[in-house]
């Protein structure tokens, strides 16, 4: 129960960070996806169901907070899929090892690419902008930025794993 409460509070914190101060980290209009990073963490730490549920709820909240022109359900859909994919890498016996190793970055990259691909294919329907060019210009840089930010928790857990 306590774990669920802490995870919920941290989820809210990441949601607030993503909708408020993340723009200060923008590099040429590319921002990292803190929510996705948190979902990957949930997947590795708590398993596939927690990550899938977290992905859906956080995505839905993000959709609601993203302004009147956003497509409600789109972030929910792509983050659910990302959480589900990331959940495949859950191994109860290797949690700290995965969080503190290159696997965490690899899972982040895979989940982020799946997320961005799904997102752009639906979001850009009928806009005249191709999803492949959007993925190249925004999806891959966002993935790289998110993965780079993922190095911070990875290093923390690597240190914890060593000690």
């Amino acid at each position, binding site marked *: 129960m306590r774990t669920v409460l802490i995870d919920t509070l941290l989820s809210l914190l990441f949601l607030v960070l993503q*909708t408020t101060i993340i723009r200060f980290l923008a590099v*040429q209009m590319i921002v990292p*996806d803190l929510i996705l990073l948190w979902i990957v963490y949930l997947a590795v730490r708590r398993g596939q169901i927690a990550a899938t549920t977290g992905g859906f709820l956080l995505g839905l909240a993000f959709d609601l*907070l993203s*302004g009147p*022109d956003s497509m409600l*359900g789109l972030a929910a*859909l792509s983050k659910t899929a990302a959480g589900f994919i990331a959940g495949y890498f859950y191994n109860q016996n290797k949690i700290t090892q995965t969080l503190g190793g290159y696997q965490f970055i690899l899972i982040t990259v895979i989940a982020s690419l799946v997320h961005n691909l799904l997102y752009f294919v639906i979001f850009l329907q009928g806009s005249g902008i191709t999803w492949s*060019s959007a993925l190249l210009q925004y999806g891959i840089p966002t993935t790289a930025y998110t993965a780079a930010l993922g190095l911070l928790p990875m290093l923390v857990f690597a240190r914890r794993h060593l000690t």
Partner: protein
Amino acid sequence: MVKRLYDILLLFKEYFVVAFFLLTSVILLAVNDTSQIRVIRSYAVVAVGLLQDTFSFIPNYFDLRRENEVLRSMNLSLSDEVSRLREGKLENLRLRQLLELKERSEYRTISAGIVGKNLQLLRNTITLDVGERDGVRINMPIVNESGLVGKIIGASSHYAIGQILLNKDIRVSAKVQRSRVDGIIRWNGGRSLALQSVARTYDVQAGDVIITSEYSSLFPAGIRIGTVSATRQIPGSLFQSVEVSPAVDFTRLEEVFVMTYLADTSRTAAEKRIRP
């Protein structure tokens, strides 16, 4: 039988969970614009505005010096332009009086600070610290000293959400200031805009200034949108490709103005009647 079903459910629970959430998301996508969702979203505008306002005190120190230099040089060139425009306005007034033309109305502007930007994965919207209480309404144009920024797409009493030009859903009737060639401005997904529906024989050159057209029902005519950066003939097409660099630097946008201009409803109604 029930036990067997329960066992199957337990065995594939991850797949049932993901299927349920994916299905719910798809249903939500299908019922995107219902009145109930609009109400929830108007509350969300207030919540996000308040949150973003709380964090808006954080300045971007790295850009301040550069911005100062840009503003000084802009100030100098604008002062020069203002004096020339004053001369032009007087001349225009005189000529209009001679021709008995109506004077174009001026619009009040509402100064607004940007308290939030949603740049994630092409959503590209901004949150302004002004709302309906200040006279802001949906579809009002947003400008800054460089030109057109976008339009208001949502407003609560204290905050408003603006859709910037670098947004997949925005369309602006525009024209080339020099040759008066008309087109539609859309975002091409990159750092620039595209002037579309321009016939290949029309006179558009790199360096031409693009402004809003009088055909627009959303924006007043004459607002600077950008400059033509390149033109290209598309083989086998009746149209040419015109790339436009936006006049506004969207990466360093901090202060804007909302123009208290709304589409003439009688005009749009007449247009709808004739062209349903």
